[in-house]
């Protein structure tokens, strides 16, 4: 699996405006919604589901990266969005550091293996420190997608 298999290019946000956890999750999900990723689904309900998941433990995995996610009954395929916060957001990460790179993932409830593989794929790609630095230096969604894709292929 590659990140480009599920990251929605047109939904990528090169500069998140939000300054807190709920705001980031809302901004990313609303972007997916605007790009037609959810049909007959109330985006507020997905926001609640992702926030509920965060209550069980932050998806900030450290090193400035978070992968907020949930499985949601109303979606029929895996979708994801990448967002960069230039100033960083307190996401309650394991290492206590702010998060700059967000990859939000929504997957169908009946595809646990796809969900696991998506999280693994994002983690494998974002383990690469030069890539994370390169992503943070991007100023457009297209640049972000191309950078991510280049590393994702390796």
């Amino acid at each position, binding site marked *: 699996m590659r990140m480009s298999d599920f990251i929605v290019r047109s939904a990528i946000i090169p500069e998140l405006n939000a300054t807190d956890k709920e705001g980031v999750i809302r901004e990313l999900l609303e972007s997916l919604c605007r790009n037609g990723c959810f049909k007959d689904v109330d985006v507020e309900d997905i926001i609640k589901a992702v926030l509920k998941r965060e209550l069980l433990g932050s998806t900030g*995995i450290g090193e400035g990266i978070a*992968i907020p996610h*949930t499985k949601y009954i109303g979606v029929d395929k895996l979708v994801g969005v990448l967002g960069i916060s230039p100033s960083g957001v307190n996401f309650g990460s394991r290492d206590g550091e702010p998060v700059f790179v967000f990859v939000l993932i929504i997957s169908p409830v009946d595809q*646990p*293996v796809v969900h*696991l593989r998506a*999280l693994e794929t994002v983690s494998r790609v974002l*383990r690469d420190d030069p890539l994370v630095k390169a992503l943070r230096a991007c100023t457009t969604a297209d640049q972000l997608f191309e950078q991510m894709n280049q590393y994702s292929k390796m």
Partner: protein
Amino acid sequence: MEDPSPKILKRVVKIKNPNGFHMRPKAAFVEAAMRFASDVKLIWEGQAFNGKSMFELMLVAAAEDSEVTLEVFGSDSLLALQELEKVLAEEDASIPS
């Protein structure tokens, strides 16, 4: 009690959670592993991952019914093995992953 001459202890564990070894049990595993002085590794698909690193465990996409090998080495390895095996064998699928 500390073992003065520790050996590497290994245990093959089957993942029983229908959601697989997902993020929440991974976090619980890291938290538990950090409580022990022993080195902790998880071996999955022929690769070894540091059991005390969330970032490394994120690379273990072990699905339900797949097997991982828990490998522990250090002065408190026996206790660590027992505790960590419990975390890996968790079955609860009622809460989101």
